[in-house]
């Protein structure tokens, strides 16, 4: 039953793969525009494992540092903006400006200010990841049921303790969702930053193979970063479910 269900769910992907392979093999589309899946996987196998790990690790490392840094800042900022009017007055305009701005537009700026190395890339991802986390923490903190707050107060909680002991856990499901969005956004910014200019990373690899005309290699890079993104998202969903197991 479960095996049949898994097959059923995999079916769209399998059909797409089959169509892709046939289209490329029969010459329906040119091998340059769309290399056959088999040659992409062959290229994947042909890449030196060391290189692949290195570039993947570089990309993931940048994303990880940025996300890990954005979480405490974003959560604290979101809760404080929700909780204290002066903070809201101070930070809200900044947030409103940052929210709709396409973060990739900042790439040239980060390069001019911070160079082409890790710092500029991590900063870009950090800024991009920060926004959905702040928004989620803000919405989560604003949505806390007042009876929970009142109960905690009447049981003797001080205001600072209230933020830590009630507001944060009550806002947690929303914060975890915000971080999920931030992770997806981080992958966009990792690749975008590396595509523009970099010395390493998956985005850099995709760029190099593309310019060299080695399209199976380029597609291999796309598949690797997509797989890593998919795995990161699944892992985060699993972690979120575990952290909020009390919701049943």
């Amino acid at each position, binding site marked *: 039953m479960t095996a049949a269900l898994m097959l059923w769910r995999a079916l769209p992907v399998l059909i797409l793969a089959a169509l892709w392979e046939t289209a490329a093999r029969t010459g329906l589309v040119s091998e340059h525009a769309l290399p056959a899946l088999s040659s992409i996987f062959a290229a994947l196998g042909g890449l030196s494992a060391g290189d692949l790990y290195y570039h993947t690790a570089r990309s993931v490392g940048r994303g990880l540092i940025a996300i890990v840094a954005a979480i405490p800042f974003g959560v604290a900022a979101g809760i404080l903006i929700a909780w204290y009017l002066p903070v809201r007055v101070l930070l809200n305009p900044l947030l409103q400006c940052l929210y709709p701005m396409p973060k990739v537009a900042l790439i040239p700026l980060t390069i001019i200010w911070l160079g082409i190395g890790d710092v500029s890339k991590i900063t870009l991802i950090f800024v991009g990841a920060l926004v959905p986390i702040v928004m989620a923490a803000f919405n989560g903190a604003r949505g806390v*049921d007042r009876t929970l707050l*009142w*109960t905690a107060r009447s*049981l003797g*909680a001080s205001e600072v303790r209230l933020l830590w002991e009630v507001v944060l*856990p009550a806002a*947690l499901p929303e914060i975890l969702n915000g971080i999920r969005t931030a992770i997806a956004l981080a992958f966009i910014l990792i690749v975008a930053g590396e595509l523009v200019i970099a010395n390493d990373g998956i985005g850099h690899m995709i760029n190099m193979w593309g310019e060299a005309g080695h399209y199976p290699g380029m597609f291999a890079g796309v598949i690797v970063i997509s797989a890593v993104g998919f795995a990161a998202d699944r892992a985060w969903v699993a972690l979120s479910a575990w952290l909020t197991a*009390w919701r049943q």
Partner: protein
Amino acid sequence: MSAPATAVPGAGAAAPGTGISISRVGYEYRPPRGRPVLALENISLDIKDREFVALLGPSGCGKSTLLYLIGGFMPLQQGSISVNGRIVTAPGPDRGIVFQSFALFPWKTVIQNILYGLEKRGLPREECRRRAQHYIDLVHLRGFEDSYPSQLSGGMKQRVAIARTLATEPGTLLMDEPFGALDSQTRTIMQDELLSIWRRSPMTVIFVTHDVREAVLLADRVAVMTARPGRIKALVDTRFSGAADSAEVVRSREYADAVDHLWTLVREEAVAAGAGGRP
């Protein structure tokens, strides 16, 4: 903000320094957009130590607002409230509250919910555990210590909320339609349990309800409130001599008469609320 309340002389006047004294309290809701709404007008009420008083009135009459003001959850705009001689300015562990919506911390287990208030009192860990277990047993939840609220029925959730509040031994218990979300059988059982707990512990109870029978059954005295703006329309004595068992009380003549009398008073207000109370 204002001077201590001077006890209003009368039948229900509390001895100075004990009980709850509500003096000329008014409250206006001021929504960010739209007109302000006068919820309470010139409310004065004295509640004796260990008395069980029900606030009865139609929906929207401000009875919950009055309860929240006694709890110190909202800033007092007019008049003053003192509890055992202390002017109310903020929430405090001397006034425990139980809400209709239970207000359990959903990320904490039953015992963690109950421990929350106990740990705030700075008691030794073992003592906290012992007390929490005592109150879990009192509300018949042994075996559910490690369950999360989402795994419990409505009645069980309310037992947890009551245990959590009782565990810190507040002198005053504020109850905001606590059984309003429960089915009628559970509600009857909970009413009995509340009465038996109250009889054994030195607590003043203020119980908000729109259920006339519930008010008569539980309370020593019922304060009937008018439709918005809420004022005290009548204070009715509902203490029945002799009968200890609530099944006996509800069959008595006194109970039927009191329900009739209060029902008439409340109906007038419910009609008024329905006719002109809407903005």
